[in-house]
Every structure is written in C-alpha cells, then in structure tokens.
C-alpha cells in the first residue's frame, strides 16, 4: 500500500470516528439543543475528513474539487437545517414548558 493510500484511509477512518461521536451525542445528550450542537459539529467534521481522505485516494484533482464542493454545500445545508430546527424547538419550548437541561 502506497503512503498516499495509507494517508487517505487513515483520514477516512478519522472521519468515521467523528460520525460515531456525533451519533453518540445524538443518543446520549439530555436535550434537543445539545444534541443538535453535537450532531451538526461532529457530522460536518466527519464529512470533512472523509472528503479529504477520499480526495487523496481518488488521486485526481477534479474529483477532489468536486468532493470539497460537496462538503461546502453540505455545510451550508446542515447549518440552515440545524438553525431552523433549533428555532422551531425554541418556539415550541416557549409555548410549553421549559425543557432545557439544567446548566
């Protein structure tokens, strides 16, 4: 296995680790906001490392560019989705009880 392959695979594995962390956060954190926070940060970071690793593995700059573009679009998409969900959760929290975890 060439060094480039090894580096690429290592980056992919690191990315998967971040995804795992995000899922753990989704399952274990106490309320919607902390879950949202954990999930979006970890998943986008994971995607970054996966994209980086795949770019190295692909070896072609066009492919790498496309992968980075996908990641950037994914960032925007995740940011807007997370914000909208948080806003909605906040609104319905104000309408019902307060559900945020005690600090």
């Amino acid at each position, binding site marked *: 296995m060439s060094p480039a392959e090894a580096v690429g695979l290592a980056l992919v594995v690191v990315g998967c680790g971040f995804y795992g962390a995000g899922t753990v956060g989704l399952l274990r954190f106490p309320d919607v906001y902390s879950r949202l926070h954990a999930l979006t940060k970890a998943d986008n970071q994971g995607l970054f490392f996966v994209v980086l690793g795949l770019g190295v593995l692909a070896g072609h700059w066009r492919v790498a560019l496309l992968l980075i573009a996908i990641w950037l*679009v994914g960032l*925007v*998409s995740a*940011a*807007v989705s997370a*914000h*909208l969900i948080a*806003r909605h959760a906040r609104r319905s929290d104000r309408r019902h009880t307060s559900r945020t975890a005690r600090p």
Partner: protein
Amino acid sequence: MSVGLLVDVMLGLALVGLSLRVVTGQSLFSDIVQFILFGLVVALSWSRLGAPDLALAEAAIGAGLTGALMLMAYRRLVQGGGEDAVRIGPRPLLALPVAALTGTLVAVIGLVALGVQRVAGAAGDRVLEALPGTGLGNPVTGVLLVYRGLDTLLELAVLLVALLGAWAVSGDAAPGRLHQVDRRTPLVGALLTSMAPLTILIATHLLLAGTDAPGGAFQAGAVLTGCGVLLVLTGTLRPTAAAGLVTRLLLVSGLAAFVLIGVGAVALGRPTMTMPGTWAIYLVETAIMVSIAVTMTLLFARSRGLAPERS
C-alpha cells in the same frame, strides 16, 4: 464473509426492517420520518447495485419531494382534525393475509428472475450492440428515448393526467396559503441564493451528461422539481388559482416535443417515434425535463399556477 456481503446484508435488513416499522408503527410522525429514511436506504441500495440512474432519481425524489409532501400532509391532517386525525387505528384484518400474499408473489418473481439463464442475443445485448449507432453512450437513455420511446411518451401522458386529476379533485377553490417558512427568516434567504442556482446547474449537467453518463431528463426534472419546491416552500413562488398560458405551454411541452419529433420523423422518411439525430434527443430531453419539473412543482403546491411573490 466479505465486506461487500456485509454491506448487502445490512442494506437488506434495513430495507425490510424499516418497511415493517413504517407500517406497524404507532406514531404517524415518526413513521413518516422512518419512511424518509427508507427512501434514503433505497437510494443507497441502488448505488450498491450499480444503478446510478435509479439512485439519482430516488435521491432527488425522495429527498426533495416525498418527505416534504408527507410532512405537509401530516400538518394538514392535524390542522383539520386535531390529534385524533393522526391517531393510528387498529390494523385491519385483511392486512396480514394481503401482506403474506404480496410478499410471496414478489419472492416468487424474484427467485424466477434470479434463476433465468442469460441468453445470448437477448434484447439487452442487442441494445448494447446498436447503441453506438444512435450517438448515445448511456444505454438507459437509449432505451428510454430511442428503443422504448412509446413507453416514455405514455409515461409523460400519465404524469399530465395525474396533474389534471389533482386539479379536478381540488376543484376551483382558491389555493390555501401554504404554510411556508418566511424568506426573511435568518439563513433561509442565504440558502435560496446558494441552492436554487445550484439545482439549476446540476439539472443542466444531468441533462447534458445523460447521453453518455448516468443522468437524463427524468433525473434532471426531479432536481428542478427540488428547486421549485424550495421556491414554493420559502414563499418565493406563490400558488395562484389559475394556470397562466406560459404554465400550460410548459406543462405540455414535453409531450408535444416528443410527439412532434416522433411524428415528424415520418416526414423525414423514417419510422415513427425514431429520433432523427442527437439534436432531437437533446430537444426532447430538455422539453421533458421542463415539463416534469413544472408538473411536479404544481402537484406539490397543489395549485394551478405559480407566480413570483411581490413583496
């Protein structure tokens, strides 16, 4: 056990498990979300099976249309009937027998299909042989437009009829205001500015690439529908009570282009429903893409027309 087999087993279990959960779940909203996940797993399965055209279509429609439609339908149910409207009642008695019967039928068909021997000179091989003569590189597009053009034509007609049916059912009432996200909501404007042009770009790419690589009119149309849905959901396009002339022209353009070229081919001395050249394929595909996008966006907005919001 190889990794590939493991992936296949997981996808298979996920498909079966999710579909079971969707139909037997007790909370409608959670079932809808699981159905969206099911669509994603189907797209992944198509990818694993080496069918990118199908994965493209499934991802576009599953991500851009089905989920949003169901969530909105759920909302309308709750609005109209309160919590009772979305309570899941007891399973009808026929459900299990019907499910068992359908499952057996599908299993039998699947097993037979798996056991069929590959015959040399079958239709698929003929298509692949004759493909270079049509100027196309993508066998899917070849089958859709060149070899089974009549089927595609009828599919377009079916889509149009579905829209007309929806119009007939909804009657002449002015369309209710779609609950949508205000464009002035933070980040939504930025989302539109970045995503809407991107969808048009991707749709154009799929259309042009469809002759040689996975893609084509249907996938491009589905992506454009996503753009339309984005605009409708954020209030940039407002449902109107009447379909304008441009809307009607766009709706029938796919069918019209296909019929015109198919019939016009006779004037050029070829059999009906053949494509006189790659230019014809591009023309018909573009018309199909636009038709599909307008039809599905109108179906989504449940109105007869759409107009830009003046604010």
